[in-house]
């Protein structure tokens, strides 16, 4: 069970963030003020922090800067009403690890926290494995059991991202940001189509499906 600190001044939003994270099995503390939030975060013991960008007492940017200055490297998800690209860049430069814009879907927030919580795990591995699916990052090859998969470079990157976060829910926006490197809504169902093509190669008939659709949210790679 992970301990998460939510620093958010809107009580209803804070309650819903907490409920969503608790539903995923986490323990959540809520603070409505920037300064108090910083003190709690500095006291330590948290695995991740959700941080509102605009807070009474102390601005979210200052909170995260202070945290980093104090040597606390707890992953921080910044949640902001400021959507423009510059605000995002400033948030990440100040020390935020991810940036989510209001209004957001709670599933998206929970998925991002989940990714932050497991950040760093398996980062140095050169071969990724999920069930009988194996991805060799050095040789750039993929195989399912004894079958070698013929993947395009883009499909390889997509599969690598899904496998690195096996067991986690990944939203379409997260996939687009991580694999393509852009931060906007690509529209229609373009990510679904890419996942569909990858799925036809990875989950060929006769194999156990590994890429699962999480209804209304995104995708997850896992063995059943």
């Amino acid at each position, binding site marked *: 069970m992970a301990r998460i600190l939510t620093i958010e001044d*809107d009580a*209803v*939003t804070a309650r*819903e*963030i907490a*409920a*969503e994270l608790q*539903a995923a099995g986490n323990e959540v503390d809520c603070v409505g003020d920037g300064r108090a939030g910083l003190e709690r975060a500095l006291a330590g013991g948290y695995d991740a922090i959700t941080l509102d960008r605009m807070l009474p007492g102390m601005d979210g940017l200052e909170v995260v800067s202070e945290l980093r200055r104090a040597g606390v490297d707890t992953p921080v998800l910044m949640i902001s*009403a400021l*959507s*423009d*690209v*510059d605000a995002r860049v400033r948030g990440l430069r100040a020390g935020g690890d991810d940036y989510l*814009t*209001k*209004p*957001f*879907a*709670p*599933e998206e927030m929970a998925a991002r926290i989940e990714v932050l919580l497991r950040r760093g795990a398996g980062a140095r591995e050169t071969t990724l494995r999920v069930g009988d699916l194996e991805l060799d990052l050095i040789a750039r090859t993929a195989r399912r059991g004894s079958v070698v998969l013929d993947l395009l470079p*883009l499909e390889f990157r997509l599969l690598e991202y899904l496998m690195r976060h096996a067991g986690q829910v990944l939203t379409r926006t997260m996939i687009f940001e991580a694999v*393509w490197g*852009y*931060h*906007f*809504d*690509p*529209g*229609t*169902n*373009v990510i679904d*189509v*890419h996942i*569909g*093509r990858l799925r036809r190669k990875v989950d060929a008939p006769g194999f156990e499906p590994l890429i699962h659709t999480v209804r*209304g949210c995104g995708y997850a790679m896992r063995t059943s």
Partner: protein
Amino acid sequence: MNASDAASRQDGPSGRWRSSTKRLILVYGAFFVAWTVVLVGAIRWQTANYLDGIVDSILEQRLRYLSSVERTRLPALLAATTQLDLHGLMASGLFDAQGHYVAGDIEHLPEGLAIDGRVHPLPEGVQRISGERAGRMHAVALRLADGAVMLLARDYRVVDQVGEIIRSGLLWALSLTLVPGLLGGYLLSRGPLRRVRAIESAIQPVMRGDLGARLPVSERRDELDMLAAIVNRMLEQVERLLGEVKGVSDSIAHDLRTPLTRLRTQLHRVQQLGSEGDPRSQLVERCIVEADALLDRFRALLRISELEDIGRRAGFAAVDVGDTLRRVHELYAPLAEEKEIAFALEADAVPTLRADGHLLFEAIGNLVDNAIKFAPRGGHVVLRAASEDGRAVIEVLDDGRGIPADERDAVLRRFYRSAASGADDAVGHGLGLPLVAAIARLHGYAFTIADNAPHGTRMRLVCWLVDDGP
């Protein structure tokens, strides 16, 4: 951004416009020339008239004198007159009653000359005994008491020569006045034109949306400065008003974010509390789909507003168009394939652009997404880039139903959806093209929508290169 924006760049001082000073000088010069021609004509006419009178009175006086002397002395006097006339301007002749030559240097009476003692013009002149024939002359003939006829003529060329001297003198004066006048005028007109060019380059940022820019006002405080000061005052007002409007919309947008987040999170909670197969859960799920669509539109709307804020130019850098197009193609090719649409990429040797790479990708992506949406199953979409007249032109072509000409400006407005898009178009929120237009405006690019042959739409972005950007 529409076609008129693109055309506006060609309307600079270096384009169709002409200097008003230059025009005034040319008009003034034309009047001056016309007036001088009239003046020369009048002086010449007056002078000729005056000299005519003198020549005629000389002839008349001489005739009166000679007619009064003794008849026998007349041949000798005529001969003396000829001898004394060194320039050969005078000619005379004495004929008997039958018209036969008696004395003088004219052998025959000119035909048609009235013998009435009055001066008449002789356009053909007279033939002298020496064989010489003078040109235009004035002549007078008088019948003497014994029936003889005395003829006196005077060469008229001298009057013509005086007229010629006056004409050429005035023409010289005209050219000596006109040439420095035109040259000076041209030099004078260059000054204001240079200042208009400076004003044009100063107003470029304003045209791109930076209302903080102002026109230069010089120390001269002349008409141009007066105009620039008026425009500056107007810009201050526009900036203030737009700032107020933006402030209001920003607060509305900001105030809506939190309630929308609450709505979405609480719907999600209700959904989690429901059980599988419960009709209420299905209802909640539909509500979530609707709420997500609402959030998408809201985010897109905010993004357009954000793009309209000029402060985003910080992210501009050199961008490889070919690479951007290849990435867009890579992202959307599977989507086209699903619809059995042939999606071609044509991008060879396109120069580097000055742009925000992420926004350029987003704009082109939106155009391609739109084209794939409107191309029929089995249709064609082309994404291409080329260099044209020192600009990079990015085009997305489809063979769908196209956008009617009268709707092309409207589709760039938020939430407008073409009637031609049909009821089957369930996807899209009418914000894709306004977003592209906002990105184009931010970059100072021209974004136009045209017909594709034989049918379909041609979306066109005309972009600045890295070296000559605004």
